[in-house]
């Protein structure tokens, strides 16, 4: 598998990424309107409140859609949108899977994978 590009972490998102390195995927939830959102940001994209809590995610979800993409001559990877049990749909990769057997609607669980600079990123694998 080729190297995974590391996310360019900003002050706005540092806490989220640090929790991932601690082994915990979180989902931002607004304390004002109660809604989960994705991707993490300082102000709620629904009500604009800056009162956001990073809630530990169950770590499970279903594949909303995916695509097996060719990389170079002999390599491929699976990009996907996974709808988390919390309700938000996140862009990710599906790993540890036989790409030919993947299906929309399939249950998956989070797998934290190390990127180039050591920062872990949330990918998913068949549950």
């Amino acid at each position, binding site marked *: 598998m080729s190297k*995974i*590009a*590391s*996310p*360019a*972490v*900003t002050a706005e*998102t540092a806490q989220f990424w640090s929790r991932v390195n601690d082994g915990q995927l979180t989902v931002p939830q607004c304390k004002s309107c109660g*809604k*989960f*959102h*994705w*991707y993490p*940001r300082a102000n709620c*994209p*629904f009500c604009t409140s800056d009162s956001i809590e990073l809630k530990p995610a169950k770590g499970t979800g279903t594949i*909303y*859609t*995916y*695509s*097996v*993409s*060719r*990389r170079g001559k002999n390599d491929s*990877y699976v*990009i*996907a*949108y996974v709808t988390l049990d919390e*309700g*938000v*749909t*996140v*862009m*990710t*990769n599906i790993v540890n899977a036989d790409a030919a057997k993947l299906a*929309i*609607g399939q249950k998956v669980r989070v797998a934290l994978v190390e*990127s180039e600079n050591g920062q872990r*990123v949330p*990918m998913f694998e068949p549950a």
Partner: protein
Amino acid sequence: MTIKNRAFIVGAYEHPTRHAPDKSLVQLHAEVAIGALADAGLNKNDIDAYYFAGDASGLSSMSMVDYLNLKVRHIDSTEAGGTSYLMHVGHAAQAIAAGKCNAALITLAGRPRSEGSSGAVPRATGDASPEAQWEVPFSATTVNLYAMCAQRHMYEYGTTPEQLAWVKVAASHHAKYNPHAMLKNVVTVDEVLGSPMVSSPLHRLDCCVVSDGGGALIVAKPEIAAALKRPKVAVLGAGEAIKGQSGGEIDLMTSGAAVAGPAAFAEAGVKPADIKYASIYDSFTITVVMQLEDLGFCKKGEGGKFVADGNLISGTGKLPFNTDGGGLCSNHPSNRGGMTKIIEAVRQLRGEAHPAVQVKNCNLALAQGTGGRLGSRHGSATLIMERQ
């Protein structure tokens, strides 16, 4: 205030090049600008507004206006990917209707083929792009962000790879008459399905070409259009939208055309069944299917059936589309197909398309663009134009 009949497309020019390693980017802009002026029968001093999307080049409208040595009193550098130029026409019509300018020049140029660009590798986004850190680690590319829409469309509506392939087949039936088209050979459904899978379910022939080139338009007030010798093409209506990930409430089955299209139809006072010719942005075959649904040419989910069996082929199909061969076969200058969509619609309305693909009595045409990435965030714009 409406823009209906308040502005006319008086000049249109498409650069014939598809590969320009020896020309600078700004030189291409100048060449298409000069071409559009000649097409209109205007000279540089008649231009008092300049519209330019930057085309992801890093160039500013200040550099361009200075390089072209224009004297402008109105500028617009709206950037929404390949559909920007449709937005520019709508905005120019608004500015003309408001008396802010008389004649607006819009240019596009790019050299992605010479520079080795591809839709199958991740493209750099600006450091300030808030989405980058949530997408770059997963190798999001242009093609897989459209492929994921196609995969979901097949799941929800039973759309088939064969139906998507028909979009390319129809485009190829038109491209064979375009001497400048990069791909002039007619292809079959089987040839599309037999081409290498780039990002499932999209094959190489489901994807547009990568080409150098450019194009330009001049939008002018009615008094100028009336004084020129060219056939008159009026802007009847325009609509635009940006659609993204909606805070995580993602719906990949509806594009921004569901907002832009109805707005343009309402302003123009016409309906999809009235349209004689449609330029539909064809970055990928799925892009065409989803836009046709969202514009109301067929019901949501029935786009696959609508495009099948040659329904988009001029002369035989119900809705002739992209009679220049489109992005799938002719060109996609700067990885942006909106400009050429408008230009071919203007040719059709003037009766200047290739005779083999010219739509008879083509008095009403639509151009539709989707820029950016359908599967993450995209700009959408619709233009409706009439021959008068």
